[in-house]
């Protein structure tokens, strides 16, 4: 996976040099973009905090273990580790919630474990379907169900593919 590690420095170098050629003031431009970081975090942090507080409570109460036991046959059948069940379930609803759970899973099982790798791939695949449908079809008189079903099915399919790829790659 050497190529992937080289991708990031090459990307930065390429884009910055290209921008300089196009007479962009790279320093000012970078600072302008970076200024958006704290407002973005300010918007997301309350939700991340709420989900992590809930996740901890969920874990401590033993409900998480119950859920894993209940769902593990179904998840095992499609090749998704049952430990990441909460992530798979929360993903269509909340992006910040998934970020919170991902960090929790990586810390709990070790960043290089199969569980954490599958969690990362599940996190990076697909989007928050229900949230997107609410925003995108907000102007429409009636929110159609078919696109949402299509998106959920294809994302679930992609989670299975991703977890399979994590095991073989």
């Amino acid at each position: 996976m050497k190529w992937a590690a080289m991708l990031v420095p090459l990307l930065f170098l390429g884009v910055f040099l290209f921008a300089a050629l196009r007479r962009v003031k790279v320093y000012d431009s970078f600072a302008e973009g970076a200024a958006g970081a704290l407002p973005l975090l300010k918007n997301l942090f309350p939700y991340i905090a709420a989900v992590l507080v809930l996740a901890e409570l969920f874990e401590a109460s033993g409900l998480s273990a119950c859920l894993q036991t209940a769902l593990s046959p179904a998840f095992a059948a499609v090749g998704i580790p049952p430990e990441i069940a909460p992530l798979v379930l929360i993903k269509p609803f909340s992006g910040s919630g998934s970020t919170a759970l991902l960090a929790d899973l990586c810390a709990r099982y070790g960043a290089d474990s199969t569980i954490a790798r599958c969690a990362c791939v599940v996190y990076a695949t697909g989007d928050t379907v229900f949230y997107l449908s609410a925003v995108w079809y907000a102007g429409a008189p009636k929110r159609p169900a078919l696109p949402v079903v299509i998106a959920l099915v294809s994302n679930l399919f992609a989670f299975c593919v991703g977890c399979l790829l994590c095991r073989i790659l």
Partner: protein
Amino acid sequence: MNAIFLALFALSAGLLLVRDPAAFLPALLEGAGKAVSLGLTLAAVYVVWLGFLRVAEDAGLVRGLARGVRPLTSRLFATRNAAALDAAAVNLTANFLGMGSAATPAGLSAMKLLGSTERPDYARAMLFAVNCAGVQLLPTTALAVRMEAGSAQPYDIVLPALLASLSALLMGACLTLLLYRVHAPRTARGRKRTDKADRA
């Protein structure tokens, strides 16, 4: 999300009340503490990537890429409406580069503009399906979270993640194509369009 939060919170709290009431507050504080350290990590990620993306945007890279994908989007959304295609292309490109904040406004205006094209329901559903696949060149947040947790090879998820989201894209696009062909009225134009999409 509100209903889920309340239900899970009440259920967990109720269970804990029976099992071990003393563990309630420590669990909440533990969660909040994790949120604070995750927030710091995310702040660093956002500074680096939002800065980078602004430079890319100012250099005209987003517009350039969007122009490049124009022939592809024209087939995908079965229209030649230039304004709608441009908005959709900017949305897709911004998503691919991980610029959620730039992608959403473009996506919303594309949604509106696609509504006045030849096959509005199909085109909107297709744009929605493509967006829900979340194809991204570099999953920057996942990478950062993994590095923070001390991964030795954080980048080994890039390829599986890209392939998995491409499979979501393929599956979503095929299903939309298939299901909306059944629904769409069988006009001559509609048939010609889908034939074209089949070849693509």
